[in-house]
């Protein structure tokens, strides 16, 4: 998920990253017997210090992070502090600006990566695993597997069935609205597509913009494609499409675009030139009735703009196809991977074992007001209303997708985004089949 245009912290990565690596090389020797063991999360006498005498607890790792915005940065620091306490491993954080980290990921992983790195679940993680850039962490999951549901577990595996990823949080994509607007105008939360169309018509005649919408960064519209595909065609088909095992010329895809065309008249015009922050402002100022986006973005924007969250609420995208109801949504999951070239894998695995617990997630979420924990039954006393509602909304889902640009090859996501942009500008029915043909042949060119 590209949280592109929101604040990018300019604080630079500390040179201590390199110093950290040097320290690791000099400090930690790993006797063979230690290899598989992970005598970890019990607190060691060494606390957070690096004075460990090269024994089973302690050691130093460097942690590459692209949580460069101020709030995630603080939350991450809290997580790291707790991890240090719990495992006795000394952790140096190397923060890189959010987008740069993602852009450079291939050279990062092939060069001198840190011992742990932030990344996302989904195809984008599986691809690097398949190229041998990530180290398998089945032994970590032997310890933490019990904390997570099967759905989550399958998202943390590579294509070869081994584990490569430990999650920290996720967040749902839902339709936001202001409670006061709904009360004032007597709207009710729609449960089906037809209800939502009626509501949108009513909003329009009441002088509101039914759906605030922005697509300058191009990925927000991909979210709408995903949800329509998930609702109409179900989870399995959606994943097949993302994984190049179904064709873009299928009638299922035609259905998605036809359905979308019904909705377009009620979406905010001029989306191509508008950033999502400005669309969120339209919702805040009550000029718009609804907005479909991630909690991670809209709720955060409310807080940045000083608006109270008490009026904000959301509901999941309504049912379109009764077979699938509201069983699936996009809920991108962020977490951490162990680069294959990490220098101190054992200490890194100890840290991962700590992170894969509800307690660790709670320590992160203490400073993160918008994402929610992934571990089953995690207790997070600091949740606000939106977060609590998110947990409830995701409790009964049958499957969770990772968002288009994480579920498929990045060039394919770009091609899809470009097509969607021209579709939104010109949703004529006659243009849909040619667009599908173009997408299918681009998929062939990209995937081979």
């Amino acid at each position: 998920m590209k949280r592109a245009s929101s604040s990018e912290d300019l604080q630079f990565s500390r040179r201590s990253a390199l110093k950290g690596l040097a320290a690791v090389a000099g400090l930690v020797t790993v006797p063979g017997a230690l290899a598989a063991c992970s005598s970890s999360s019990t607190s060691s006498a060494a606390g957070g210090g690096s004075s460990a005498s090269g024994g089973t607890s302690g050691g130093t790792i460097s942690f590459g992070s692209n949580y460069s915005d101020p709030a995630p940065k603080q939350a991450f620091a809290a997580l790291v502090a707790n991890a240090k306490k719990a495992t006795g491993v000394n952790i140096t954080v190397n923060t890189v600006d959010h987008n740069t980290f993602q852009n450079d990921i291939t050279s990062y992983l092939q060069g001198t990566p840190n011992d742990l790195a932030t990344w996302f679940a989904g195809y984008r993680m599986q691809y690097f695993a398949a190229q041998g850039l990530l180290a398998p962490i089945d032994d970590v999951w032997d310890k933490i597997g019990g904390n997570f549901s099967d759905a989550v577990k399958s998202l943390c595996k590579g294509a070869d069935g081994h584990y490569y990823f430990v999650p920290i949080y996720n967040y749902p994509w839902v339709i936001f609205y202001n409670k006061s607007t709904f009360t004032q105008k007597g709207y009710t939360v729609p449960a089906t597509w037809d209800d939502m169309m009626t509501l949108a018509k009513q909003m329009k005649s009441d002088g509101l913009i039914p759906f605030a919408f922005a697509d300058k960064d191009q990925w927000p519209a991909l979210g709408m494609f995903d949800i329509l595909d998930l609702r109409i065609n179900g989870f399995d088909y959606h994943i097949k499409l993302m994984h190049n095992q179904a064709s873009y010329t299928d009638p299922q895809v035609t259905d998605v675009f036809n359905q979308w065309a019904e909705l377009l008249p009620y979406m905010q015009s001029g989306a191509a030139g508008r950033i999502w922050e400005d669309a969120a402002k339209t919702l805040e100022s009550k000029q718009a009735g609804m907005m479909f986006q991630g909690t991670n973005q809209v709720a955060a924007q409310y807080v940045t703009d000083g608006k109270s969250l008490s009026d904000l609420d959301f509901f999941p995208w309504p049912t379109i196809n009764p077979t699938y109801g509201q069983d699936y949504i996009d809920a991108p999951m962020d977490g951490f991977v162990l680069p294959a070239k990490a220098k101190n894998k054992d200490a890194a695995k100890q840290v991962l074992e700590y992170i894969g617990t509800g307690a660790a997630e709670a320590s992160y979420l203490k400073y993160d007001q918008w994402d929610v924990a992934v571990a089953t039954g995690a207790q997070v006393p600091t949740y606000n209303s939106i977060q609590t509602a998110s947990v409830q909304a995701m409790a009964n889902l049958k499957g969770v997708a990772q968002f288009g640009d994480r579920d498929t090859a990045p060039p394919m996501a770009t091609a899809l985004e470009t097509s969607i942009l021209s579709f939104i500008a010109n949703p004529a029915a006659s243009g849909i089949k040619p667009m599908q043909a173009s997408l299918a042949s681009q998929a062939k060119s990209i995937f081979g």
Partner: protein
Amino acid sequence: MTHDVASRAPSRRERQAPTGRRRRSAARFSRRDILVAVAMLAIPVLADIAFIWGPAVVSIGLSLFNWSGIGGLHLRSCIAGGLFPDNGCFTGVQNYYQAATNYPPFWPAVEHNLIWLAVFVFIATPLGMFFAVLIDTGLRGNRVYQTVLFLPVMLSLALIGIIWEFIYSPNYGLINTVIGHNTNANLIDWLGDPSLNLWAVLVEASWRQAGYVMVLYLAGLKAVDPNLKEAARIDGANAWQVFWRVTFPSMMPMNIVVAVVTVIESLRAFDLVYITNKGTNGLELLSALVTNNIVGETSRIGFGSAIGVVLLVIALVPISAFLYQMFVRREAR
């Protein structure tokens, strides 16, 4: 730019060495001199090869592969249909074929590059020439006009893009507010509407290009022999005829330079579109397409290199013309 060496009187030493000329051709450079010459050339030449020409040639090679930047390259052909694209495999000219037939931004980018060139050739450059000619007639306040018109050339293109966003902003910008199109109902989205944004950006680019051309042309005009112009005027030619029949032809070298600068600058266009919207949605340019495929996660290195080679081939045309004019024709003269 003149300096006084030519007009200096010969020194005593020079006058005392009348036979220097004949001795010169016999042993012009000592061995040490040759070594020094090679040393002086070595680093720049190696740097030029290593960092400019080497990569240019390697780009051509890379364009024949399907590569995401991970791992190495091999000559096996690409295998289709897996979950993950085959990586590092040889694909011949497929990348070129795909770019031309199966990559929606490609032909729009070519078209936009051509439009960019046309606007520069027919609008921006003539405008700059016009300013230069006008200023050269000796208006009062010349220096001020020159300074103002040349100012945009000093600013980086990224900066220009940012400044002009205030002019073009849909809700608050100068244009929309002045013409009354700044409410949500009747917005003109100068930078977001694909049918408008290329022209909006071209205004920005021309704003800069005209000043650049003006300065070059002014220098050329100053070098024109005023006696020629006087003679023509005495013969009864009006200002327009003096320009086209006397001034313009005598500025051939400068005209060539201006022509080449125009073409090269239009092929180089990148910063403005990239800072506006990363070169998408109506602002596609070949240079931006290359960048988008290579920099960042998309990582279609081979494919991006193919587009780069297309850009290279297009660029070699004006480059060759320029080099031919500058060096070969001059050597022959």
